[in-house]
């Protein structure tokens, strides 16, 4: 299914974000279409994570509009954004280390739970029925990410690559429309990276989830994303398919480096 350009899932328009005198983002606009894998790249300090934090509701931009699912978004708290259908993972894993993989994933379901604290505490009737439904959903994700063998292992004991996978699982558990991945492959070895690529593509296809990711590994970005936004010093430098971006002179100069002959 090709993404439909007339009906984007998320649109950021003229976003500017400053921290005191530092301009983290300056008049950045782009859109994320339904069903695509969208990459945000750029050198260190280019504003990639800031952009993700803006979309996520963690930062509120001084200027600009965010349109999600056809609606202009107000000033929102991150948990409200999450409820709206945006889930994310973090650059430095933010899991509950003492909890098992299963519990971490179940935690991702919390925003989807309907029964109130009273029923949850009572743990009978509707709460139990609901728990079973959520567990089924989570088991589906466990199967999908092939993490059955670590279901009951406390996350803190897992190797880094697996923790990343669990974090992706928790974001998936929220059943979001848009998944924000902040450097999902950072610090991984080649094999783990390949696995993660496979999972990102499969998530995109199997769960119909739109994905926006920040990544440093150019090979990975060019291979798995449909379109790429390039940021540099808070400004948008280029926007287009991986091929177009790769051949864009401004991008080559600023980020990919100038080849020695020229």
């Amino acid at each position, binding site marked *: 299914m090709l993404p439909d350009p007339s009906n984007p899932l998320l649109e950021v328009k003229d976003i500017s974000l400053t921290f005191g005198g530092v301009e983290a983002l300056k008049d950045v606009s782009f859109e994320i279409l339904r069903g695509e894998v969208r990459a945000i790249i750029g050198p260190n300090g280019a504003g990639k994570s800031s952009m993700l934090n803006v979309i996520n509701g963690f930062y509120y931009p001084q200027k600009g509009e965010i349109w999600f699912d056809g609606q202009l978004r107000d000033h929102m708290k991150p948990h409200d954004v999450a409820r709206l259908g945006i889930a994310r993972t973090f650059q430095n894993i933010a899991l509950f280390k003492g909890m098992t993989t*299963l519990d971490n994933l179940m935690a991702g379901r919390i925003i989807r739970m309907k029964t109130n604290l009273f029923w949850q505490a009572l743990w009978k009737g509707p709460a139990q029925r609901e728990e079973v439904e959520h*567990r*089924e959903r989570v*088991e*589906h994700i*466990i*199967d*999908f990410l*092939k993490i*059955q*063998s670590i*279901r009951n292992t406390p996350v803190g004991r897992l190797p880094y690559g697996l923790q990343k996978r669990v974090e992706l699982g928790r974001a998936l558990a929220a059943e979001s429309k848009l998944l924000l991945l902040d450097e999902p492959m950072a610090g991984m070895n080649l094999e783990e990276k390949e696995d993660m690529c496979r999972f990102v593509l*499969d998530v995109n*296809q*199997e769960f119909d989830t739109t994905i926006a990711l920040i990544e440093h590994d150019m090979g990975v970005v060019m291979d798995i994303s449909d379109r790429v936004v390039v940021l540099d010093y808070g400004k948008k430098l280029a926007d287009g398919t991986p091929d177009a971006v790769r051949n864009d002179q401004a991008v080559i100069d600023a980020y990919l480096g100038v080849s020695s002959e020229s």
Partner: protein
Amino acid sequence: MPFDCMNDTFPKLLIHNASRFADRTAVREKDMGIWQSWTWKEVRDEVFLLANGLATIGFGRGDKLAIAGANRPRLYWGICAAQCLGGIPVPIYADSVAEEVLYVLNHAGVSHVLAEDQEQVDKILEIMPDCETLEYVIYDDSRGLRDYDTDCLRDFVDIQNAGRERASKNPGFLQGEIDRCSGSDVGIFLYTSGTTGNPKGVVLSNDNVLITSRNSAAQDGLTENEEMLAYLPLAWVGDHIFSYGQAYVTGMCINCPESDATVANDLREIGPTYYFAPPRVFENLLTTVMIRMEDAGRFKQWLFDRFMEIARVTGVRILDRKPVSLKDRLLYRLGDWLIYAPLKNTMGFSRIRVAYTAGEAIGPEIFGFFRSLGINIKQLYGQTEAAVFITAQPDGEVYADTVGIPSPGVEVKITEAGEVVYRGPGVFQSYYRNEEATREAKNDEGWVMTGDAGYFDDNGHLKIIDRIKDVGRLNNGALFAPKYIENKLKFFPQIKEAVALGGGRDYVSVMINIDLDAVGNWAERNNIPYASYQELAGHPDVYKMALENIQQVNRDLVADRKLSASRIRRFLILHKELDADDGELTRTRKVRRRIIAEKYDKLIDALYSGADSCHVQTEVTFEDGRKGIIEANLDIMTTDVT
């Protein structure tokens, strides 16, 4: 169990089981975090839907259905569904690379494939252009396959739905097909993973598998109450007999683990009563237990050591139902409560009635450890060509160094040359499309050559000593079986590899590799400094340790009627580890005798001269491909054997 001539095929037996065991659980699979189960009735319905569905895409009598994947209930159903239609299932090792799969598909003339998941489907689609007979690929797990735009791909569920429709229009069809099959029809092709050359397709009839399964199940008293974990490759004959043949014959429950990585955990959850594992698995388990015990507190260690000693003395006797004094019995009971039962529970062995191991020699220590805990682990000797069972150890007659007595209905004899040959109900029909190999392996009277050398000991138990082609004779005419001696040496943790020499010589000598981890540990504890493998290997104390091991082996050999002349007279410890990179071992770590004989001819000459030491220069290949020379003066030690 009387021979059941009514149910002479698996589909017939399935119908029978669906009525006699109706609502008993036949299969479990861990999925979505819990054990999902199917009763015998449900299995019958699933298999019949699949069979009807296969008929809608042109699968019929004599067609071959390849089955590629791990132990999944649906793949087992595929085997039976193919047999319902008079077709032949051809299981394929899930980890085979594409070329190997292609060879099997082409050789067997496979028209349909039942594949587990995307990984298997990708492999099959890749080779499809080179496989003319292949028409359809059916997959069990649709994950990742949604966007595949290939005409020949079918979802398992869609095939079953088509089968449902066909069955309603043509209800008598399947029963008619099932009735047309009989016991003498070909039941399955099992491709043996040959170490050299292409794999051979062993053709087994329904009778081969069914009668062997019935006989062996009766011998061990297996019933429908048994629980079995199906975790070994589908394409391996053992799994076909244990998880399919014996399961259909007895009605026991087969449990499919969630994934490769969860087998240990699933084993524990299921607590099987009937279990098979190669020696390596038991070895690893023992190592894990020992390592974890080292981390335990001092009191627990003391308790463990104390009671394992009691178990060693009385456990096996109790298991073999031999007389044991009341005091020992009570002590063992106490040990069971404190140590053995919890330990068995951790390993998932709490409920085991019968466990088998086979494939290679198992160390007596390992064997003894599990038996002393009250786990009835036994050895069997088998081949694909025999539908597994040639010999097996009966309850109460279990010896670590034999493989038991001939299985029911099987005749075993030793040829003049010392080769083990057998015939019986399980003997294969032929190698598919390979007349020559069939004639080589099986003579007109139905005797099959095993290629193994062995003999019956005084208890009437078969002892396998080596491959027949490696067995030689000493100059005095006595039998010399290098692998037998090497295995005995390798059972010591300090000895990693050993090469025994003696064919056409006056006496036996060995060259040894020490295990750097084990001996290094020992050196550390005893304050012996060393800078390299070579230095440690040449240390007088290490030689002394090796000498003790060799004398122990010699004591064992003396007790052996046929091999007492093979006692080791001289030995040396090699200055480098035998390495596959240097061509001394195969990639599966088997000793390459010819190459070693050429490379170390000076050492071998020295072993058979009177010399006390020998100077040697050896070329070695480092891991990065560079080559270098190692030089050493090796001591040669003489034992007290004359």
